[in-house]
Every structure is written in structure tokens, then in C-alpha cells.
């Protein structure tokens, strides 16, 4: 017996009711609150905010709840909401050297002004499942250090810059319009502002794989983790009617500055080069991968042969967005039977012709 699927309003409505039911799970188990997600799934919230391009922990928590923990779906929800928001203008550049640092490490110096500050990190945990945690989480609060964090924490790149050992980070020029990839379609070759925006929104898994590939020889750029810092920075905005910037809030960011293989030329003596990564919240793995890929994509700037996938700007940028990728991969679920019918007609005709040729030969 054959019953063709007839798509319709009712099928969609029923499917969505079922989805709601499955999201809720067993109703005897208490429902998740947004505060629980925000406080206890904070790294998921940070990833959704970063790739969703919207700094709002509450909405990110809602998206995670609605998406049943599917972070790519949650990112999609946040992006679709973000696109409806009015934009008032461009903020001032973040001053990450004035960050209220929670964590700051450098792999290039044993000690440095401001010191190494480990902060909270999975890095030196033994990855043993903590069965005590399964029963409940009653831990003593972390102690407060006797002395405050040094409020002067120069950036590692600035220390190198004093000696001219690292390329200068030159701004494109004050008040030049910054490329906005949410408002314009990408052009290739892209400028660095477009590339960094693309990478900042890019899928963490995509960047991680590409960054990793550079370490394994596909476009190696000899990176050192010059500095990784996590903390709060002020967001400033200069309203037109005021004419000067005012602080409108504070956000948590993760910044990674990679120090990469040196380059020199007839005009400039050898110096290190840079790769840069920045994310909302605490997304250290993503920030590091982003910095590796950013540097790989600058191959052209340094006259390096761009032969590896991670150095291929169009390849990297055009496929980094998981909302685009997820949609297009999954659109294969949509009916394609008209095209398939066209292929059937063609293949049958080709087979008829092949059979006729065979018969004629016999």
C-alpha cells in the first residue's frame, strides 16, 4: 500500500507540537530556567553569542533552551533575531589593553609585567569524570587572593613592538568605513576587516580544523601564543548629537594574539608577524584557532605561496558560516523529485541508446 506524503498546514503544526514535547522531555523533571543555562552552561552561551554575533546572555540562553542544546540551531535563532534589530552606528574600537583581566597567559615569556594570571581553565584539570558532581555540586567558593591583580598589564605585542621586533598593527586610517558583512555581500580579495568579521562569526569546528591543519604542515606559520587574555572591556559609542564617546556597557571577551614566523625585506629588517583572534565571552579554543587562520590568510600580504586550504581566502571565508552551511546541507531534505525525474528520463534514454548499440553490435 502506498500513501504519498502530503505536506500541509496540519502536518507542520503537528510536527511542531511534537518538537515542543520532545524539547520539554519528561515533565516530571523540573524545567530548565534561563538563569540555570546562563549560569551553568556559560561556555555554550558564550559560543552562541560569538557565532550568533549578538552579545546578550539572556537571549543566548533562551536560544539554547529552544534549540534543545543544539548550538548551531541556537546560533541560527539568535542571528535571525539579530537581523531585525535597528543599528545606531559603529562603536569605538575596544581597548583590550585596558581590560579588567580575569585570565592572562603568555607562552613566549616566563614572566612579564603584570605577571601570568592563570584564572579559571580546564587546562590543568585531569579529565576524570567527577562522580561527586553527579550527586550535587557543593564546593567551597574559590578564595580571594590577598593582593589585587596588577592593573597595568601591557600587551605582549606592545613589549615586542618597543624593540621593533614585531610588525606594527597599523589601523586602516581613522574613520574609514569598516566593511560590514551583515550588510554587504563579500568581495574577493577581501580586506582584513572583512576577514576578521567572517572568522569571528565562523564556526568553531571549521576554524579549529583549519588552524590545526596549518600546524600539521598545510601552510605552517610557526605560531607562538604570545598572549591570551580573558576579561571585561568597556564598550564606547559616540552619539552624533554628543560628538564624544561615552561608555555604554561592559562585555566579556577573549583575545588571542599569536606571534608568528618572521619576515623581512630590503626595506624592513626581519620581524615577527601577527595573527589575531577575538570572541565574545570565554571561547579560548575558538580565539586561538581564529588567530592561526587569520595569519594563514595573510600569506598574500607577506609574499608567501598560498597553497594550503587554510591560506585560501575564498575557500575559508565562503564556507565558515555554520548558519549558511547548515541550511544548504540540510536543504537536501527538501523535495527534489522534479529534478530527479529529469535525471531519470535522461538516464533511461542513455541506457536505451546503449542497449540499442549493443544489440546492433551482436
Amino acid at each position, binding site marked *: 500500500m502506498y500513501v*504519498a506524503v502530503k505536506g500541509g498546514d496540519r502536518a507542520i503544526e503537528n510536527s511542531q507540537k511534537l518538537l515542543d514535547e520532545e524539547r520539554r522531555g519528561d515533565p516530571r523533571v523540573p524545567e530548565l530556567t534561563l538563569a540555570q543555562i546562563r549560569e551553568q552552561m556559560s561556555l555554550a552561551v558564550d559560543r552562541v553569542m560569538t557565532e550568533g554575533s549578538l552579545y546578550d546572555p539572556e537571549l543566548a540562553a533562551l536560544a539554547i533552551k529552544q534549540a534543545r542544546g543544539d548550538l548551531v540551531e541556537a546560533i541560527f535563532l539568535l542571528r535571525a533575531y539579530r537581523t531585525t534589530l535597528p543599528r545606531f552606528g559603529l562603536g569605538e574600537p575596544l581597548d583590550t589593553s585596558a581590560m579588567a583581566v580575569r585570565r592572562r597567559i603568555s607562552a613566549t615569556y616566563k614572566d612579564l609585567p603584570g605577571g601570568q594570571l592563570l584564572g579559571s581553565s580546564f587546562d590543568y584539570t585531569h579529565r576524570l569524570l567527577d562522580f561527586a558532581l553527579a550527586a550535587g555540586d557543593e564546593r567551597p567558593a574559590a578564595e580571594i587572593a590577598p593582593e589585587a591583580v596588577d592593573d597595568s598589564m601591557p600587551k605582549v605585542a606592545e613589549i615586542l613592538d618597543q624593540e621593533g621586533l614585531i610588525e606594527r598593527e597599523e589601523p586602516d586610517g581613522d574613520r574609514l568605513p569598516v566593511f560590514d558583512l551583515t550588510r554587504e*555581500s563579500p568581495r574577493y*580579495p577581501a580586506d582584513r576587516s572583512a576577514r576578521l568579521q567572517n572568522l569571528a562569526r565562523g564556526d568553531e569546528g571549521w576554524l579549529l580544523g583549519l588552524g590545526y591543519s596549518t600546524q600539521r604542515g598545510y601552510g605552517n606559520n610557526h605560531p607562538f601564543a604570545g598572549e591570551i587574555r580573558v576579561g571585561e572591556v568597556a564598550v564606547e559609542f559616540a552619539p552624533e548629537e554628543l560628538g564624544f564617546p561615552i561608555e555604554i556597557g561592559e562585555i566579556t571577551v577573549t583575545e588571542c594574539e599569536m606571534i608568528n614566523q618572521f619576515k623581512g625585506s630590503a626595506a624592513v629588517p626581519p620581524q615577527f608577524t601577527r595573527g589575531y583572534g577575538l570572541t565574545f565571552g570565554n571561547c579560548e579554543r575558538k580565539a586561538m584557532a581564529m588567530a592561526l587562520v587569520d595569519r594563514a590568510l595573510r600569506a598574500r600580504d607577506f609574499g608567501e605561496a598560498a597553497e594550503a586550504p587554510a591560506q585560501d581566502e*575564498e575557500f575559508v571565508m565562503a564556507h565558515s558560516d555554520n548558519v549558511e552551511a547548515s541550511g544548504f546541507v540540510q536543504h537536501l531534505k527538501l*523535495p527534489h523529485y522534479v529534478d530527479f525525474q529529469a535525471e531519470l528520463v535522461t538516464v533511461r534514454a542513455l541506457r536505451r541508446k546503449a542497449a540499442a548499440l549493443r544489440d546492433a553490435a551482436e
Partner: protein
Amino acid sequence: MTTVIPHPTKSTATAAAPAQLEGYNFAYLDEQTKRMIRRAVLKAVAVPGYQVPFGSREMPLPYGWGTGGIQVTAAVIGPDDTLKVIDQGADDTTNAVNIRRFFAKTAGVATTDRTADASIIQTRHRIPEKKLTEAQILVYQVPIPEPLRQLEPREAETRKMHALEEYGVMHVSLYEDIAKFGRITRSYNYPVRVNGRYVMAPSPIPKFDNPKMDRMPALQLFGAGREKRIYAVPPYTEVKSLDFEDHPFEVETWEQSCALCGAGDSYLDEVVVDDKGTRMYVCSDSDHCRERREAGHQGDGGPK
């Protein structure tokens, strides 16, 4: 044994405009965005077949599911329009239903499944069998707007090729088909040349539909959301399917007729009706089929 065939037996005809969703602008997008899209549409109409980059927005529907077509429709639709949405030729496929619901909800416009009653038809993969008129706009959903993409993956290169009218690689690809199989084997998304200038992807419609594009009285608009491109074929513009003198373009034909309405000249879907491989053929254009049946035409009912 019951066989439910994927066609409405009765038309739901034109549904009255429902109340528009509160909290969102008419047709979802804000007016500035619609203006930006209309400017891209105007440029596309002025340069037939040229892919105009536009600042495609993130829509509440997934990329690859019609976001380009939805943005174009949102930019050109007005409160007095009547919208028809089809996917695979039919109004009742899930994605067509979903997009129609989207506009019913966000624009509160009237919707219809009758081709003749629609002022805007958004489509995926088909052109209606009924001849369209000057009063209508056909909006295509486009997955990959670049006809050369499968031959050259880089946008930086393909843009140059279009600028220089360097289409040799496309002809070579078609010729390779002939050398390998004795005929051009592309059966859908068959490349066309518009107004004697730009080679254009007609979107994945079957090549059966290509001749309908040529000098069509209706305005044809193409939206590719993920790829951020809009292009157009103005009314009465020449659209020629690429071919060779000794291998002229031809369309699919079937030995069968529609089992429901008996049409022998429409695009047919093949439906497998049992586990022994028995098949029946029905019109892919569900409104065309309904109209013929209402006019008294009848097919043989398919396999008994």
C-alpha cells in the same frame, strides 16, 4: 489497497487575507532593507541575466530553503497582491506551505493556489504550465546563482569570465557530454543565455521549462539568499538554452500521459505505487492538473 496521490482534489482557491502578525514590519523586512533589495532588483532588470550582489539578510528560515526568493518577494509584494507559492510545481509541498504561511502571517496578503489568480508566484524548481501574463511576477528561489560554479569554484574568477564574456568553458563542458554520452546530459539547471549577453543559471528547473522563459510576458526575478545575489529577466526578453547546431536543445518527453487529467504535454512526476515497481505518472503542476480535471479531462487513473 488505497493510493493517495499527492494532489488536492479540490482547489482551496483564494484564501482571504488573514490578520498581519504584530511586532513586525509588513512582509517582515524593514523598509530600508526592502529599498536596498528593490535597488538591486532594478539593476538586475536593467542588465538582464547579470548577478547583482546585495546585502542579503538573515531570515527566520534556513539558507537553502528559499531565503533569496523570500527576500525578493518581500521587497516587491504589496497589500493588494495575491501570492502563490509552489515547490516542485505543487502548492501543497511542505516548504511551499511554510513560505505561504510566512507571508500570510507577516504580510497578511491573500494567497491562492490558482496560477491565473496570482499576481506574484514564488517558485522552487518549476515554472507553471499556464502561460503567465504581463500582470504577474515570477520569483525563483535559487541555490547556486553562478552557472559557471561547477566549472570554476572561485567567485573572483567567474566574475571576470562574465565580464569578458568568456563562456568557452561552458561550451566545452556541454561538448564533453556529447563526446561521452552522445548528447547533452544536463537535465535541470540547464544554462541559458539572456538577451544575447550573460550566461545565466535558470535555477534547478527541469530543462523542460526552459523554453517558457523565452520572451515570457511576466517579469522573472531570481533571488539567491545564501549567495547574496539577485538577477532578472525582464518581460519579452530572449532566453536561449545553450546548444550546438548539430545538437539542438530539446526537452524531456514521456510516453505516458497524466493518470489524473490525461495531459500529454505537461511535466510529469513519477509515483511508485507498490513494492513491485509499478508506477503512475501525474502532472507536477497541481493547479494545471486540477484545472484540466475541472474542465472535464480525465486520465486513465493509472495502474489498476
